[in-house]
């Protein structure tokens, strides 16, 4: 019947408008894939240095409280981290910008702002904690703390964007917690969390929402 069809359409419209007005849905799956690839590339680049550092630390003594690595090695690791993060962020923004043009929604609307603030708060807190861990020479706790705080940031942001990101957040948190009991495998956990999980998530999202 014509009348019923109209009601079904109205309900569908309502759901769509509620979603579009309260969530930032232009987040592209390709953003996840590109961020993941950046993380894997950085892991491969840093792997030999990391192995050497780890060996040195291991023979040096206490595993839980690592001594500070030589400053130049430390600088290399930190710089690689920062460059990787910025490249991944830039690519993620690019793909999301491209998608927002396709879905005809503005990239800097109030939904985007809400998403940014709500992910930024746990992320900044995590950044400070991680910085302090490095300061206190608790190098082994850096990777778990990055993963856990990143997961919490995603979990918090998931209310303001595609809901699937909640599961990515939970996986990052679990991985970070597991890593707490496998100190010394930080880079492996990092590669899984920021590399493999991002690629899996991005590919799934692309397959589900963006495939033509």
């Amino acid at each position, binding site marked *: *019947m014509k009348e*019923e069809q109209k*009601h*079904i359409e*109205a*309900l569908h*419209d*309502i*759901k769509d*408008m*509620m979603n*579009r*007005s*309260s969530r930032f849905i232009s987040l592209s799956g390709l953003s996840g894939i590109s961020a993941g690839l950046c993380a894997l590339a950085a892991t491969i680049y840093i792997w030999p240095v990391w192995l050497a550092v780890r060996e040195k630390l291991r023979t040096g003594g206490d595993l839980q409280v690592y001594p500070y690595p030589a400053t130049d090695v430390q600088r290399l690791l930190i710089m690689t981290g920062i460059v990787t993060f910025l490249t991944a962020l830039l690519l993620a923004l690019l793909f999301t910008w491209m998608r927002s043009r396709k879905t005809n*929604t*503005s990239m800097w*609307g*109030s939904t985007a702002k809400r998403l940014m603030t709500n992910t930024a708060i746990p992320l900044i807190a995590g950044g400070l904690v991680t910085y302090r861990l490095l300061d206190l020479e608790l190098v082994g706790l850096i990777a778990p703390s990055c993963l856990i705080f990143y997961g919490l940031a995603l979990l918090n942001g998931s209310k303001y964007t595609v809901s699937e990101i909640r599961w990515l957040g939970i996986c990052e948190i679990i991985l970070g917690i597991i890593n707490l009991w496998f100190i010394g495998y930080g880079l492996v956990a990092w590669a899984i969390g920021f590399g493999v999980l991002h690629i899996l998530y991005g590919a799934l999202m692309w397959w589900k929402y963006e495939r033509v």
Partner: protein
Amino acid sequence: MNNPIEHLNKVFDSRIRLGIMSAVMVNAEVNFNELKELIQVTDGNLASHLKTLEENNYIKVNKGFIGRKTNTTYAVTKAGEKAFKSHLEALEKMIKGIH
């Protein structure tokens, strides 16, 4: 016999008004431009539908400023929330009724 059509609210019998109500239901407040982008209508058209909803006391208008530019935001009222919910229930009942 209970006729569900009675519960369908005439005020919501427009895609634009439904869109406005959907947006104000899930957001604390929404401004004019956001609504325009969301529903994809002209200024005049949107304004007249907003007026109708305001006259029915379903939304409240808050005129503010961002710097020098006016920023009018809209929020749902208690009455609007109640009316929209019962409208949704009526829609659902009608659809379930067929199957």
